[in-house]
């Protein structure tokens, strides 16, 4: 496993979401006050860009499109949220955010792939 610097911690202000490019793909860094998370740039519900649709309040990330939300400390799904967030392993060190981004994390959506008999998942 290798750590890649994503950004300086000061680049993402408290309770905000910012997108960065690494290894040829995008991630978003979320500063939820008590810490940082590095996650894929879209909502696992309907691919909304979290940099625009994401709101962070009291350690919870909410996508304003359909109100899916997750506690960023515990990663618990809240309300009517039906899919967990995928998370890059990350750490804050020397004022910078590092993450393990060797492999891009992608969500599976119903309209991808050969068959989508997982209509009910």
């Amino acid at each position: 496993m290798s750590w890649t610097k994503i950004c300086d911690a000061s680049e993402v202000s408290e309770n905000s979401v910012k997108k960065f490019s690494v290894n040829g793909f995008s991630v978003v860094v979320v500063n939820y006050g008590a810490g940082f998370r590095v996650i894929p740039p879209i909502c696992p519900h309907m691919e909304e860009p979290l940099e625009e649709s994401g709101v962070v309040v009291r350690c919870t990330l909410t996508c304003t499109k359909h109100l899916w939300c997750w506690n960023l400390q515990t990663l618990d799904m809240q309300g009517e949220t039906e899919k967990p967030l995928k998370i890059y392993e990350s750490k804050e060190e020397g004022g910078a955010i590092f993450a393990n981004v060797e492999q891009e994390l992608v969500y599976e959506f119903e309209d991808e792939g050969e068959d989508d008999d997982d209509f009910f998942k």
Partner: protein
Amino acid sequence: MKISVQSKSGEHSFDCGEHETILHAGLRQGLNLPYECATGTCGTCRARAMSGDYESLWKEAPGAVRLKPEKGDILMCQTRARSDCVLRVPAETSVCQGTPPARRSGVIRNIEPLTKDVARFDLHLSDPMAFEAGQFIVVETPDLRGGRAYSMVNFESSAADRIELVLKQKPEGKFSAWLFGDRKREENVTVFGPLGRAVFRPNEDKDIICIAGGSGIAGMMSILERAICADYFKTHKGTVFFGVRSHADEFYLDELAEFVELSHGNLEVTIALSHEAPSSASHHEYPNLKLATGMVHEVAQKNLGGRGENAIAYIAGPPPMVDGAIRSLLSNGVTVGSIRYDKFS
């Protein structure tokens, strides 16, 4: 024809007539199927037909963009059955506890312009309809695809045979064209409702926040009327943000001012002007309505001051405003479960 629905919560079946959509058929027979707009735009009522013949009324509906018709995906609000059908619905379903929505005929009367592009009209119903404050109906005419959703402006404590609705004229809107074109006209329409879950009941025991853009104020008027009738503001706070472009686009100010008057000082209404600096001269008749400049969700953001902790919030307006309003509400302490809106545009 018989429709069988397999949902996350089990199997249900209901009859479907030749001239009704599958969504309407299920709802009127007391099955809570998933929907929000009921007019083809949101995509919430998607389902997959596993067997049976059916007909799509509006293949290009905005809510259908993510569907795969080749796999049998449909919007239940835009589909009529042509034989018995088996559907899979990727959501929970349940049995309706109250009076289910129904189809009625109605006559549109008393069209009155409120601004240059907003009008109000009455809809006289063939038989009375009970509804909750904040609900809407779908109006259908033979030349309108998809139907149009309108929130009730009035509130009646018992079933109403007259409902008041607000219409925003859209540049290419056929329905609004004839409504604005000939105000003496009376038109027979079909009405399905009541619909919508963004409702207010006085037993909620929470403060109320309303953020509305333009004609989105319609449903808020019903909610405020309901609250005033129950003297809800004796013990709860109400905060309303009503966004319009300029003073010339304001309407329902008399009614809003009266609500404030009757609120024991607990209802605050702010008119947010997005494209004009507020002029108190043009508002001297309404000393109890506040004025602000900016997009309505930004004005709400600045003025809510964390008042959302114990509040239910209602939102209605164009989609970017709804997104912005959600952001403002969350950052002012409103919880996700307390935000109510029906996406109909």
